[in-house]
């Protein structure tokens, strides 16, 4: 049986009489999906150099993980590696690209900008605060930009997620998003909550306090 018996002993069951019978088809499908991810060549800014070019190069060879067939058309791809800032003008196009991709589709958000807005989070009128406001994200890879090795860790995390993930009986049901390479005990909710708090603190103005700070000329506007 070769590769199936070697790699997936759990998926096969010996039956009396000497034949093997595939009992858990999900596992085989998920295993095949996980090891032949076709990424979309979608890079908006700096991360694209590290994520798509350096990883495609000879040193960090992405082909080792079965994900080197980068496709320019979203209809032929099933992995969207978000490399770079998403701005408001690009957001509808990103959504279109995501919807054009073949199902099941997976998304890896790489770099600070796609996770939260990164260095462009404050005082920027165009940056989207995290790509997960537009499309669902499966794995987050932090860094600015992350090293190629970090992307591979993210890719392995995604592969693990796919292998343990959805079944044919319940399609579309996924596990929660994973942050690759973060210390244990820190969850996505913690980080998002913290970011939200900071943003609110930055953008909320106490009107009464602000008025008090202004120096009104005395005796002009006090009604007397």
């Amino acid at each position: 049986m070769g590769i199936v018996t070697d790699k997936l002993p759990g998926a096969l069951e010996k039956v009396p009489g000497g034949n093997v019978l595939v009992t858990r088809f999900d596992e085989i499908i998920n295993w095949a999906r996980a090891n032949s991810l076709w990424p979309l060549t979608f890079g908006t800014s700096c991360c694209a150099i590290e994520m798509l070019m350096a990883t495609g190069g000879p040193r960090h060879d992405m082909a080792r993980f079965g994900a080197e067939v980068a496709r320019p058309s979203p209809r032929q791809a099933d992995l969207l590696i978000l490399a770079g800032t998403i701005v408001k003008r690009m957001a509808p196009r990103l959504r279109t690209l995501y919807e054009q991709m073949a199902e099941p589709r997976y998304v890896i958000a790489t770099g600070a900008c796609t996770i939260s807005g990164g260095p462009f989070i404050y005082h920027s009128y165009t940056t989207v605060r995290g790509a997960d406001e537009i499309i669902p994200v499966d794995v987050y890879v932090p860094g600015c930009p992350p090293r190629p090795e970090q992307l591979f860790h993210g890719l392995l995390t995604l592969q693990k997620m796919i292998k343990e993930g959805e079944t044919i009986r319940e399609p579309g049901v996924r596990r929660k998003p994973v942050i690759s390479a973060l210390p244990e005990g820190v969850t996505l909710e913690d980080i998002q909550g913290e970011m939200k708090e900071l943003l609110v603190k930055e953008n909320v103005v106490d009107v009464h306090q602000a008025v008090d700070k202004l120096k009104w000329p005395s005796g002009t506007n006090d009604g007397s």
Partner: protein
Amino acid sequence: MTVEVSSLKELVEQASGTSGSPDTQEYFVNMGPQHPSTHGVLRLVLKLDGERVLRCIPVLGYIHRSIEKISEHMNYMNCVHLTDRMDYLSSIMNNWAVAKAVEEAAGIEVNDRIQYIRTIFAELERIQSHQLWWGVLGMDLGAFTPFLYGIRDREVLNDVMEETIGARLTMNYVLPGGLMADIHPNFVNRVKEFIKYFRPKLDEYDDLLTGNVIIQERLRNVGVLSAQTAVQYGATGPVLRGSGVAFDLRKDHPYGVYDQADFEVPVGTVGDSWDRYWVRVEEMRQSLRIVEQLLDNIPPGDYLVKKLNSKIKLPEGRYYSQLETARGILGVFITSDKKDEPYRLHYRSPNFNNLWCLEPMIKGDYIASLIGAMSSLDLVIPDIDR
């Protein structure tokens, strides 16, 4: 000279219902924002007659991150770090441009050691940028092998720079008043090793791609940009020099320690894609020469002449400073109102001006030539939109 001003909508309305010749029909095609050979999220609206390009209108804004606006809320030390994300392939030179502007405005004199190290790193980064461009040009024209060769050598250089700086792409190395850190003790030796390694590789590049018949056919007499048009459109860097104008800030208005190095400025003759290709490949050789000359003469000294805190204030006024990045002249324009934040910070980015040369270059040519011509411009889209 008349200036034609028309919106995109009007252009599309004009073209609908008209046809150029009885056999073909004029129509509009969108190229991008998601396209493998626009090097990012550039969108080109092409007006085609059959396969001929009649008009090529760039539409911008798909990666506009409002860096200039954010900089107005940052102190001068922090502004430097956003420039890494503009033209990310020449990040040290971008850092240097802002640092130079702030130093000139605040009247800070940096010592020779800092200038030497800055110059060496700028030239190394220029090589790195051209290596990547060389690989991507091959990939755009349909050859995947150059990409592997270019990235292979880029990684070798990346290791050398990473040892000192600690980052692979966004370097954040040059600060107003000095450098982030001193060079690594191994740095000089490793750069020498790299020069020894890379010299023969450049000849290998020539064997592989430069002499290739297909590459010559795809680049020669394609996308011809005359010297006059290049100057009119404000093109700088290899694009301008490919058109035959020998203008290089490193030579004409020396900064750093370029006046102490002996190097030549390669200049093209025709102004086609081939000339721009040749200028860049030749620039890599010249950069190696500059680095080789400066490497042994790095004087001793501090790597930071003045530890500036975040509250540095520039005197009131307007300051402009420029230098030559891998793609052309990057200008930094600061308007200061005596606060610790700039009142206005404007970047004159090289890619923005180079992009508009695309239409005069490619008008009337085939759509397949557009890819080669655009690749020879070496555009970085986040630098155009900022």
